């Protein structure tokens, strides 16, 4: 059973936290309804039973409060995991998460590290309206001093979260509410640690490189299958972490395919996608047959209506169009 075990994304996250909490007494979880209610999205289900209220802590609805408290605890060497029910709610905690955590080591001249994991749901897709559908990687990845992981599958969710918890720096861990029920193969009883800064080739191909991360990985794979029927063979690279960014894997692929499409579900202006495109242009200037094409969300707030929201996000159709254009097949 273990070799083929399939579990949900949320179970993978829970396994990562549970295993790390068993392994390291310094690790604890805090956030809104993570204990008695088992988490708004049941990611922490059963963890209160195993670890008790000392290590699984229900907090008041007070994002700045628990983010700031976690920073203080991390300064004294603990390893807090902070669950934001949604990354959208982290906006009220901007001062602790952006102005303190990523700078603490720097501003204290190396005296105080800040090994906190901030994690929660990110991105649109659940018809939650624009205030609850933030894709924070665009804004937050701009800040040096933090690391950012955005897993696309349950096995990576587990392996990246375990790495995040063991990391000595603040890690922003972005999940998707749309993916929590997604099932995938996660071996049982095996230590999975996915190193940061190593992309994963999700599909090998020769004609066009699609570089992406998180939920859009699945849209890219869907697009790649459709394009294969048209004779366009795409290579899909899942970068898995934004900071650090595995530019090497993308460059190697583009040197082979000569075309590149970047898919990023944040707004295009000043986004991880624009950074990636700029780096590809720099490193592959003589290899590219076309400029790097980019698929982002539309430059509007996340719409509430179902059909508009689907159209707002990157999707397989848009990716297909971008690949055709980049490869002169339009």
């Amino acid at each position, binding site marked *: 059973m273990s070799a083929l075990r399939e579990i949900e994304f949320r179970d993978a996250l829970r396994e990562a936290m549970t295993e790390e909490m068993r392994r390291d007494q310094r690790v604890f979880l805090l956030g809104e309804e993570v204990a008695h209610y088992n988490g708004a999205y049941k990611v922490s289900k059963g963890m209160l039973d195993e670890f008790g209220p000392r290590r699984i802590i229900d907090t008041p609805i007070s994002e700045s409060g628990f983010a700031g408290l976690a920073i*203080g605890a991390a300064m*004294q060497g603990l390893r807090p995991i902070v669950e934001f029910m949604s990354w959208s709610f982290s906006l009220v905690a901007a*001062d602790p998460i952006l102005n303190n955590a990523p700078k603490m080591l720097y501003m204290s001249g190396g005296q*105080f590290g800040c090994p906190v994991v901030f994690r929660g749901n990110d991105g649109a897709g659940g018809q939650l309206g624009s205030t609850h559908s933030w894709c924070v990687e665009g804004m937050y990845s701009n800040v040096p001093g933090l690391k950012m992981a955005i897993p696309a599958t349950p096995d990576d969710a587990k392996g990246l979260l375990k790495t995040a918890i063991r990391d000595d720096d603040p890690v922003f861990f972005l999940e998707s509410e749309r993916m929590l029920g997604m099932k995938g193969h996660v071996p049982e009883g095996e230590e999975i640690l996915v190193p940061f800064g190593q992309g994963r*080739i999700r599909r090998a191909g020769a004609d066009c490189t699609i570089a992406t991360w998180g939920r859009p990985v699945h849209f890219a794979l869907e697009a790649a299958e459709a394009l294969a029927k048209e004779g366009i063979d795409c290579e899909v690279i899942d970068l*898995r972490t934004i900071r650090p960014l*595995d530019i*090497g894997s993308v460059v190697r692929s583009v040197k082979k395919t000569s075309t590149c499409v970047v898919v990023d579900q944040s707004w295009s202006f000043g986004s991880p996608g624009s950074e990636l495109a700029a*780096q590809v242009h720099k*490193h592959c200037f003589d290899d590219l047959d076309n400029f790097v094409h980019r698929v982002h969300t539309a430059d509007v707030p996340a719409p509430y209506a179902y059909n508009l929201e689907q159209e707002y996000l990157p999707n397989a159709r848009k990716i297909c169009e971008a690949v055709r254009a980049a490869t002169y097949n339009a």
Partner: protein
Amino acid sequence: MPIKTVLTAEIENVSILDAEGRFDEKLGKGLIPDADLVKLYGHMCTCRHLDEVAFKLQRSGRMGTYPQNMGQEAASLGAAYALNNDDWLVTCYRENCGLFWRGVPMESILLHWMGDERGNAMPRQHHATPIAVPIGTQMLHATGLAWAAKYRGEKRIACTFFGDGATSEGDFHEAMNFAANLDIPVVFCCQNNGWAISVPGHIQCSAPTVAQRALAYGMDTIQCDGNDLFAVVHCFRKAIKQARSTGRPFFIEAVTYRLGDHTTADDARRYRDQAEVDAWRARDPILRLRKYMAKRGLWSDAKEQELQAKVEVEVAATVERAEGITSPNRVDFFDHMYAEIPADLALQRDTMQTHGIGQDPSQIEGAVIELPAKEGH
């Protein structure tokens, strides 16, 4: 059903040595041994002189913006004196005196305000955190530090300082609620100096005291004359004892006044009446302590002259050390970005180029483009 009263509350105000020199023997006797008192007084004088020198350094272009501590020496000093040295002291920027008592080098503070980050590298043995300049963020850190101590079963508590202006920040309320609600031993001390830069207390909040806000969070609270070292020590001893024994937070409002500007970037004469400032000058914490010590035969003009001469030498040497430090290397700012420097940042450090420039491909070859040893699984 009849209308019932669900809460009535009283808040004590503690004064032991008042501005007129009256001393409450019952509360004050034996509170601070004479030998300590002389030491504490000397410490306040040193801090005051450093403050005056720092102001002059700024005015002569030898220092950046500086927030004078003048008039507020007693509160943080009383706290540092009452706390154990391994309790966390989490301050903002008007607690120099307490930090120096802890052993934080004076030149660190000067260095910080001269615009050198090395001034904020507080040696860990002092259990003091870097000076927090954003208003109010440090209260949450103190709560987290104390929570971590509790989590580890240590008896250590945290004490955090902030001004009256910070009590309007959300972080203040969130820290207070967390500390009370999660049973965290933090002593919150508001140095209420009456002014948030140019905004007077009554425009900041309608409540007559800051201390009463603690009641809303189910936290014990007390107000004291913040310019009275005895009252401060009395309140901190009470707060610390209670926090340590119950694991609960405690709130102290130290009523004080900044005799100087908010920082060297503003001119308080433009928004404060001189009469108000003069009245508070008469309530100076140093002045009243000196009078008290003289009355008790612990102090004399000769001793004062001797002290001032010593302080001048000490502060001058401090300034010399702070100004004499070699400028940081331009690559130093990469040093403490991450526990281990990532490859792209190491490249920036080694070439001092930004992502976008890349003018020398040879610097990039073999660095950024270096492929991962192992392809993803």
